[in-house]
């Protein structure tokens, strides 16, 4: 079980994240976890779709949403997925510095996205959409807020990894950890694409 030994250029297997049994377990277990997360978000989307017109006299999506703002947010998050892909490409090439750098870029983009989201919620609140205003408000904040909570968790997770492993180099222990964190990050992005469509585009246009 040489899982904690740093691997040099010559012995690094082509897929370090799946080279050990522990890595394979993490990899597979994480895909299952994402399966569960899919149901979690599907339930929230279903709830939102059921309640999205129940504004009870309060403001609705068409009154509040600004497509330009949400479009910028979407671009930021999609770019962060791209930077995390670069991170994994660097991992495959055993360029640890590159991996760390692109992961930090991902963190920065994630934080920027969160900043926009806080601003967005703050704006809506001041335009009369509190969490308790209507069933629409509750379901909107819960769906988008749960996504935001996932982004926050993902950022904290990646920062923990970056700090913990800043000096160790790529090992068979941390390769699966970076890999699953990136999987999680892609998942968050995919969920956002659905939010962009179902909540914002449908809210403004439909």
């Amino acid at each position, binding site marked *: 079980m040489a899982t904690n030994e740093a691997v040099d250029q010559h012995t690094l297997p082509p897929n370090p994240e799946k080279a050990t*049994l522990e890595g394979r377990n993490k990899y597979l277990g994480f895909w299952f976890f994402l399966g569960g997360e899919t149901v979690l978000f599907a339930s929230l989307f279903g709830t939102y779709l059921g309640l999205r017109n129940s504004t*009870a006299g309060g403001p609705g999506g068409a009154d509040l949403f600004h497509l330009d703002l949400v479009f910028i947010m979407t671009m930021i998050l999609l770019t962060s997925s791209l930077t995390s892909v670069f991170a994994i490409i660097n991992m495959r090439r055993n360029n640890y510095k590159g991996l760390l750098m692109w992961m930090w870029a991902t963190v920065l983009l994630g934080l920027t996205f969160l900043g926009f989201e806080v601003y967005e919620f703050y704006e809506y609140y001041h335009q009369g959409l509190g969490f308790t205003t209507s069933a629409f408000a509750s379901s909107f904040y*819960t769906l988008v807020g749960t996504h935001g909570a996932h982004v926050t968790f993902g950022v904290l997770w990646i920062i923990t990894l970056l700090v913990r492993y800043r000096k160790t180099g790529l090992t068979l222990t941390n390769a699966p950890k970076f890999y699953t964190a990136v999987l999680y990050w892609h998942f968050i992005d995919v969920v956002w694409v659905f939010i962009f469509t179902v909540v914002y585009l449908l809210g403004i246009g439909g």
Partner: protein
Amino acid sequence: MSNAKAQPKSVLWDWLTTVDHKKIGIMYMVAGLFFFALGGLEAILMRIQLMFPEFSFLGYQTYNEVLTMHGTTMIFLAAMPLLFGFMNFIVPLQIGARDVAFPFLNSLGFWLFLFGGLLLNVSWFTGGAPDAAWTAYVPLSSDSPGHGVDYYVLGLQVSGAGTLIGGINFLVTIINMRAPGMSMMRMPLFTWSTFVTSMLILFAFPALTIGLLLLMLDRIFGGAFFDVAAGGNVVIWQHLFWIFGHPEVYILILPAFGMFSEIIATFAKKRLFGYSAMVFATLIIGFLGFMVWAHHMFTVGMGPVANAIFAVATMAIAVPTGIKIFNWLLTLWGGRIKFTVANLFALAFIPSFTMGGVTGVMLATSAANYQFHDTYFVVAHFHYVIIGGVVFGIFAGMFYWWPKMFGYRLDETLGKIFFWLFLIGFHLTFFVQHFLGLMGMPRRVASFLDGQGLNEMNLISTIGAFMMGVAFIILVITLIVSRKNTDNVDDPWDGRTLEWATPSPVPEYNFAQTPLVRELDALWHEKYEGDGKMKAAEPLDDIHMPNGSILPIFISLGLTVASFGLIYSTHVITVIGLLITFGAMFVRSIKEDHGYHIPVSEIKRGKGER
């Protein structure tokens, strides 16, 4: 690096920090039996209240609380943990694995379940348990005064997280950790049913998570999901609850099916009839389990098209289930049947469960459902399937696997007394409830009126419940007095599957050498085609083991503290609780832990003792 030997530990510390799937399995069993006794006591209290018309034993409010806690306890805190106990202990052995895929998460799953269960029951002492039934329909639950339903929402949330973690662990264990030669189509049926059950857990529990989240947001943070005046919709709760709740009944019954398959094959001394048909039937039941949740909502007003679709989908489940019943019967056909207690429960299961299945098809007829809905007919139906299926399965599994798990055989004579008393008590209690229901007695109501022809059958039902209570006491006595039966515990039933190839008690590394699997019913094959021992798939070598950890308790404790903060809207405490949880998670993620190795010399000594 990690060649350090395990530190000697005190017994208590060992159990609190263990990541050994066998010890976790035993802890699930003990906790499950405790909650089973509690849920049974609640059932007896209800039956005393309903013994006579307009009886005043429990107040109406207390009755509602006892009713709610009986259902919640039995499903979440008794049946599932008992099944999880077997899965944890048996499945890694059956697939020839040294360990589960995620030992740490496995322990976390157990402690989350236990803390969630305790949290639910704390409500008894803090001003009233939840009172909106285990289904917690809104607005009954959203408007329920006091904190009872808050305990329900948070207790189940914590406990449910543990279940989800356990499910993922089993899935990965079964896919990645099988011994060489153990192809999917050589897996014992109990492992197969654990696999499908874990799939169901994975896709069903997140819907409950969201349902509970929405209810919590409504009750504690003033959300408007179920507040009709603010545009909310109460039917959303029913959909979310049953998208979880219907698969849940298959989460309970499929492992029991798996156990019966093992037990019937062992005690009929025959290979299971139609193995591949059994596997596919299990998969189909698992799939259809997700397609039928709305049959709990026929009277909501979904319209005839939706009702018809869900009715037909529901009835379709009878087909794979019927395949299984016939396969069990054909396994018995021509077998040399041994009537051990384990097998008696398996044999009694077949007719009892079939009766429950038949009333299930009746209930699935959506037109007739308008008549049956919310009467004792429904109560009779689901107790026939859950007791006649799941509980019989748990008892059969206990008598079957007890020697492997605890190192002693349960007394057969006492066991038979227990079996007959429980069987008769069960049918006495619930058979008459079909007729009570058809005569219009509503469920969930604390009393009934005199002179409506309901008196005698209610009395009979209560007598049956008492018989089951006495039977349970005999079971507990059996568990205690059987401790001297420690001879012949390695393979007492002439077993067919890999768990019987290990010594009892099982060493912490399970198999000194990973076994090589050459056939379905691996051990049986070696007994008849080989030399009676499993072939080794690897040379004897040091074995890598994970270290124990106390962190799962801290993670669970933090969530429990946070739950109290939420229940009493004291958000400082919520934050403290979450800090404990995330702090423990942080410690876990920055601390590198490579476990330890058991040296060959020690393994050889372990083999010599046998």
